[in-house]
């Protein structure tokens, strides 16, 4: 007797036509009768302890459900690094130029909007007029900023400080 049929019989989920033959088989099969008893014991115990069942720890994941994530660099969209780099560069430009350029707020806002669309600082420079070119970082500035970030990150363990967040370090390498 198939125990899966027995399990369904225990649950009263066998149709009228199949049930008589299954009961015949059950009556004649000592092993199946043992399982019949134990299946009911399982049900009795589970019904007597619903709170304990709810309190059971989370079931372990099956091996097929364990997903190994690829390295962070591998899953990052190619333009994401550029987008963050553009934001960092823009902040640096604002700091370098100070607050003495109130007339250019609208232009800066326009540049910032473009930066959100993951366009590199170099591309941003091409969309403005000649005056705007002074706002975007030059190549040497960009290099210095990258160099600073890389050096700082390399030295941070000796300095005993938390250092730059990993994504900043990644930006430093990927913006090139």
């Amino acid at each position, binding site marked *: 007797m198939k125990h899966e049929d027995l399990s369904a019989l225990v649950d*009263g989920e066998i149709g009228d036509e199949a049930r008589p033959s299954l009961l015949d088989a059950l009556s004649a099969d000592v092993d199946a009768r043992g399982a019949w008893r134990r299946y009911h014991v399982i049900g009795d115990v589970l019904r007597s302890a619903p709170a304990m069942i709810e309190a059971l720890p989370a079931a372990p994941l099956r091996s097929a459900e364990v997903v190994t994530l690829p390295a962070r660099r591998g899953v990052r969209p190619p333009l994401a690094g550029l987008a963050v780099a553009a934001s960092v560069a823009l902040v640096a430009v604002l700091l370098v130029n100070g607050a003495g350029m109130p007339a250019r707020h609208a232009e800066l806002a326009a540049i910032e909007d473009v930066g959100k669309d993951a366009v590199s600082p170099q591309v941003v420079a091409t969309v403005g007029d000649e005056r705007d070119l002074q706002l975007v970082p030059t190549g040497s500035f960009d290099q210095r900023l990258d160099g600073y970030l890389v050096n700082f990150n390399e030295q941070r363990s000796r300095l005993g400080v938390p250092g730059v967040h990993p994504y900043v370090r990644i930006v430093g390498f990927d913006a090139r």
Partner: protein
Amino acid sequence: MSDNTTDSDLVQRVQQGDKTAFDLLVLKYQHRIVKLVSRYVREPTDALDVTQETFLKAYRALPRFRGDSAFYTWIYRIAINTAKNYLVAMSRRPLEVDLENEDGEPLSMDSLQKSLETPEALLLTDEIRDTILDAMAKLPPDLREAITLREVDGLSYEEIAEAMVCPIGTVRSRIFRAREAIDLRLKPLLEN
């Protein structure tokens, strides 16, 4: 289809003289009846005696059982009455068990007698409960959910399929696999 339908089939078989069918009813309900009786009769040995008498009374009365109520409801009442009578008597003398039916034919309730040889198994000890719960904890989530919806919440396969968004065949398979996994741990305990 329901659990009661299977019981009705078994009752009919007993009424037609199939004693093995009564064994199946005993195997199915013995633990529930012991637990029920134990609420009235604290002494485990006495509770087992009252349980045995309950099944004997049921067997004798079964030819007159018309199926107006579910079999379990019917035997539930017999168990309660038997336990109350026992408490009234309180004579502490062993119950006189007549192992013959109305025709004077000896009963062959192998399962009941076998169970009474191992009362600790019939009483569902803490070890049995802990083993089942531990096996439950180790089940994959889909199996655990399926058997919980069935045994604890009492849902039909169709309702479980709707709840778990899967075919009824999958529900049937999951519940079976859950039972098999638990039974693997339970079987040695009950057999020993």
